């Protein structure tokens, strides 16, 4: 094994151990169906492992991991050719939708959250998913390449959207 491949494997091991759960959650944000999602997670891990050959440590490890995972996810929804049907964070249809379920148990809340996320266009979806992972705005900007001001506006829209869509109260 060469030094380069050792370095790649070492970086991948660190990334997979630290961000493995986050990668699976990101994949949930891009694919509903269990089997396709498992394939997508594998694709994300494979792309990540390969990408470390080009990682020059100009950004944090987490930034790199999120970039690769989201880029693979965005490619996945682009292949499904549904971009035209997806909407942005400021679209009133995200709030106006009448969710059939009245219950507020954990599973139904997560299902509603997933349905909302799956309606979002790629860039807004990335910001939403990174926000839900508690990434600070500056890191969201670095991962997505959006300006700090743009990220701030999107986060404001996310907070408003979540407040309006999930105003029923804490199920616990």
């Amino acid at each position, binding site marked *: 094994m060469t030094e380069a491949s050792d370095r790649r494997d070492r970086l991948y091991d660190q990334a997979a151990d630290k961000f493995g759960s986050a990668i699976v959650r990101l994949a949930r944000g891009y694919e509903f169906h269990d089997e396709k999602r498992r394939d997508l997670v594998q694709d994300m891990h494979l792309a990540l492992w390969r990408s470390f050959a080009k990682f020059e440590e100009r950004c944090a490890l987490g930034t790199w991991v999120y970039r690769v995972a989201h880029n693979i996810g965005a490619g996945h929804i*682009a292949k499904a050719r549904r971009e035209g049907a997806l909407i942005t964070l400021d679209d009133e249809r995200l709030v106006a939708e009448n969710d059939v379920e009245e219950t507020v148990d954990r599973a139904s809340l997560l299902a509603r959250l997933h349905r909302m996320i799956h309606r979002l266009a790629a*860039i807004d979806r990335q910001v939403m998913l990174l926000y839900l992972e508690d990434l600070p705005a500056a890191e969201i900007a670095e991962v997505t390449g959006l300006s700090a001001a743009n990220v701030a506006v999107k986060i404001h829209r996310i907070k408003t959207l979540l407040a309006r869509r999930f105003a029923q109260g804490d199920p616990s």
Partner: protein
Amino acid sequence: MSDDFISALWQSQDGDARRPSNEDLAARAVALHRRVMWRDRIEYAAGILVAVLFIAVVIAVPDTGIRIACLVIVAGVGFTCLNLYRRRVPAPDDNVGQACRDYYRRELGRQRDALHSVWRWYLGPLVPGMVLLFVAIAYRTIPVAGWWATIRELGPIALAIAGFFFLLHLLNRLAARRLQSTIDAIDGDRS
């Protein structure tokens, strides 16, 4: 319900996610490579089939004009397959670590350009040979059957083929336009 609660709810998922083993990754790499190779082979196989059919016509039909037209079609098919090969996305993608907005925009642009120019690199190479073929057939039949009968027989077929090519071109242009709308939305999203 607070944002913190929603974030905590989101992050409570998949806490026991297992990372793929090195064997899983290697198997996935092979599976992906095979899928891409299979898709490429289907396209090249279709091209070879068309080429073989027209070479069979070259052998069977003792008319110089028709033979030349068929050979030009075969060359056109070869050129189209070469363009398909050149346009395949190399794996692995060296840019996958790029900031998401830039990566996504670049991918959409690449797809848009390929769709927008499908006339030039996919359909166009087939046109000269098809035109020559119709001219060669007409050149043989007009002295025998006359202009009107030749037009009546060949016209609908030529129009159907031209219409099919035009429809493919139109569908690809519409798809390119949809991608451009998405690109415009990304470029315009500077709120």
